């Protein structure tokens, strides 16, 4: 049987290379022409514990993982214990012979048991026990008849930086394992996953990478940040690419320094971005207000993880929405985007800079661990590189300034609220920027009228910016009995849910909010005006987006599905919860 879809799960300890082998296998599958969605689940520790990597492949585009596992690669007893029951009838379990497996239970459900001497193969062929993961992949590839040369090409690429010995060792291990599967389990497994011959090449990208790419192409020149899961890889990707593409990347002493360095750099004219998570954003709170009152365009990426405080460092949640909306004393405009897909991350990466510069205020991209770290295969043109636009808003050129006849007023009162901006360095635009209230020329003032005018000028930018905010993205039939509403990383699971519901006969669609602030009230209202039953699905305990919908657009959601256990939504989870909703 030639399969159209399949889910692999690789489970083991931190340090066993679960993530790297999972990512490698995902890449191989993508290279073979499959659509791929890969997600990781790991503990906040370097060794031990129990991590897994889950890969779903399909011959059609997919946006999410799903729960049932077709082939489990269990590297540890824990992985066996935790995941065997997730394997579907007809599926299989690959693991070391010595592990305890309840074969009877597997048999009952017609799950195939594929014991394999992974450690032996790793040691004999590769000379190192750590290559056990490669052995497992080799067995898996063998079982499904995956073209070995594709797998080999990924091994070559991935281990290249570790040297020829690593490449060769892993190749030998993979090959031996592949052969082992063929020799021992030929025809024992009913899945076949070959190469899709006519498939175009695709990229495998996660949210962080897409966002970093968007920022890079959008003219990001300066990145300052402090490592924090799940935002770290943006900082690291930029550090790895900065020298080549002209981006200065600074690992700072803390997040306070990061946001203030952004303000310094952006004030001078560089497009500047800081990736962080909730804890780092907390430390940026005071600086955010400084960007607000000095009208300095900066971009912060807040990749959420479960709080409060350190919470669950390597897991996912959507619990910081109201926090980023209201962070810092006083009232000032900010832009908040919450992309839901890899494509939207890319767009947010450059669009945030435009919005920040057009409205001279901080722009925040609110992402989360699930979106940040899950990879999806996309078409080569899905991230529209050439379509990236750079709009610096009302930025005065040297020529403009040369011709200036009156004194330059950095914080001039304007109808739009936006005051034409000059960068320091021109003799005609020597001005003050300050976190204290100020007159149009930037000097300190405490006069009530001047204060009132500046407050209003700044807040007017929100009205102006509102036009730029997109309404919810719709997916599914325009008219439907059931409308699922979501934001951010729930896009994928929701989309899959909608497809399944419609396939099962329920007409359902979804509305996905991606531009959060200024809240596109009218667009949201319009989108939801003739929705049927509405169900809000979000990853927090208090229903933060539902609260925004109700309080800012007067939309009362009928039912709520929430999750705050650190794990992402799956379509199955949503479907089950929808059943619950129906039943009571």
């Amino acid at each position: 049987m030639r399969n159209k879809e399949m889910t692999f799960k690789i489970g083991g300890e931190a340090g066993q290379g679960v993530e790297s082998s999972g990512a490698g296998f995902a890449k191989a599958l993508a290279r073979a022409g499959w659509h791929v969605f890969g997600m990781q689940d790991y503990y906040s520790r370097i060794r031990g514990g129990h991590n897994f990597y889950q890969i779903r492949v399909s011959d059609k585009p997919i946006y999410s993982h799903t729960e049932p596992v077709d082939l489990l690669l269990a590297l540890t007893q824990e992985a066996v214990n935790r995941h065997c029951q997730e394997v579907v009838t007809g599926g299989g379990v690959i693991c070391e012979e010595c592990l305890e497996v309840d074969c009877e239970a597997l048999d009952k459900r017609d799950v195939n048991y594929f014991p394999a001497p992974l450690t032996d193969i790793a040691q004999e062929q590769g000379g190192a026990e750590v290559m056990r993961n490669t052995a497992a992949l080799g067995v898996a590839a063998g079982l499904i008849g995956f073209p070995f040369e594709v797998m080999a090409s990924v091994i070559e690429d991935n281990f290249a930086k570790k040297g020829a010995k690593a490449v060769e060792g892993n190749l030998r291990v993979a090959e031996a394992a592949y052969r082992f599967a063929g020799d021992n389990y030929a025809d024992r497994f009913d899945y076949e996953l070959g190469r899709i011959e006519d498939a175009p090449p695709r990229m495998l990208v996660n949210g962080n990478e897409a966002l970093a790419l968007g920022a890079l192409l959008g003219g990001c020149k300066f990145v300052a940040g402090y490592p924090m899961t799940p935002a770290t890889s943006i900082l690291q990707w930029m550090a790895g690419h900065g020298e080549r593409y002209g981006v200065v990347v600074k690992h700072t002493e803390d997040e306070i320094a990061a946001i203030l360095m952004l303000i310094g750099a952006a004030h001078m004219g560089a497009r500047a971005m800081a990736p962080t998570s909730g804890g780092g954003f907390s430390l940026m709170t005071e600086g955010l207000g400084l960007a607000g009152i000095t009208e300095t365009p900066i971009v912060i990426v807040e990749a959420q993880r479960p709080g409060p405080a350190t919470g669950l460092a390597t897991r996912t949640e959507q619990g910081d929405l109201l926090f980023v909306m209201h962070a810092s004393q006083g009232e000032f405009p900010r832009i908040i985007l919450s992309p839901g897909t890899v494509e939207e991350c890319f767009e947010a990466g450059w669009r945030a800079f435009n919005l920040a510069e057009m409205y001279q205020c901080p722009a925040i991209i609110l992402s989360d661990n699930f979106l940040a770290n899950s990879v999806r295969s996309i078409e080569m043109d899905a991230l529209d590189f050439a379509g990236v636009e750079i709009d610096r808003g009302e930025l005065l050129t040297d020529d403009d300034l040369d011709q200036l006849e009156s004194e330059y007023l950095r914080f001039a009162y304007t109808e739009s609220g936006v005051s034409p901006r000059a960068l320091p360095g021109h003799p005609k635009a020597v001005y003050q920027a300050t976190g204290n209230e100020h007159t149009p020329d930037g000097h300190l003032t405490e006069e009530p009228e001047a204060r009132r005018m500046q407050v209003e000028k700044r807040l007017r930018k929100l009205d102006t910016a509102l036009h730029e905010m997109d309404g919810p993205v719709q997916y599914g039939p325009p008219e439907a009995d059931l409308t699922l509403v979501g934001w951010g990383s729930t896009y994928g699971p929701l989309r899959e849910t909608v497809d399944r519901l419609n396939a099962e006969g329920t007409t359902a669609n979804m509305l996905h909010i991606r531009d959060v602030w200024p809240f596109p009230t009218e667009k949201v209202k319009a989108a939801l005006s003739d929705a049927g039953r509405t169900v809000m699905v979000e990853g927090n305990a208090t229903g933060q987006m539902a609260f925004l919908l109700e309080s800012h657009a007067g939309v009362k959601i009928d039912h709520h599905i929430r999750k705050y256990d650190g794990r992402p939504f799956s379509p199955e989870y949503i479907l089950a919860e929808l059943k619950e909703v129906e039943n009571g």
Partner: protein
Amino acid sequence: MVEVRDYQSPVRPTWCKGCGDYGIWNSLKLALAELDLAPHEVLMVSGIGCGSKTPDYTHVNGLHTLHGRSLPPATGARLANHEMTVICVHGDGDGYGMGLGHMMHAARRNMDIVDVVQNNRVYGLTKGQYSPTSPAGFVSKTSPGGAIDRPVNPWSLALAAGATFIARGFSVDLRHLIEILKKAIQHRGYALVDVLQPCVSFNRAYAYNYYQPRVYKVEEEPGYDPADRAAAWERAHEWGDRIPIGILYQAEGVPTYEDQVAVLRAGPLVKQGFREWTEEDYAVLRSGFM
């Protein structure tokens, strides 16, 4: 030729009559003018406090930030435009209290920033609480029984952090301070200029009368060599009947942070312009995900 009046702002200082900040302000303007640096070539970054209002009173690119936080934006500004002369001005509470961590890190990075600390050994703007440099026993509104935190020693901290230029001025001795500031500006790397700054409103005990008889110039000490780090360490601890001012320490030839950032070899970041992306670039980028 740049002249001092080029730095004149329409806004007059709001400092108390007799405040040491006037002297520092004037010295800064004079030093800049004497170095022929025009206002648009200089960015003055400050924190929050009485002295941190200096940029507001100066016709210069000004960035008046948050309490304790002037060094990070100064760092960002330098990395974005390293042709700009960047000078921080902030108080002792700001710089040695809340901002001490940033100072240690800026110093070890050898960021090419002049860091002027208006050290009046008290919180001026919030009206008289003890500061990190207030002497033990100092009675203030937050230390009514006398301070029991031992004061920081900015010189020895800067030395330990790896600062490549460490000096102290006295706000009354303008000419001396101007020369220090000029050398600090010319120095390539992080330059701490601690300035004894009388606060006539909240710290009368440690004002002109206290310092005048005590200060002496290290450069006038026979054989004093600012390149000698061990000697500097010793001298950094001198504080009593004799209080050294002048350039305590200067290390030449240590590369600045900016010098070592590869991207900046192509010129100031803000002048590099946006990259013209080519199809080839796109292909290279895409290949990283395949």
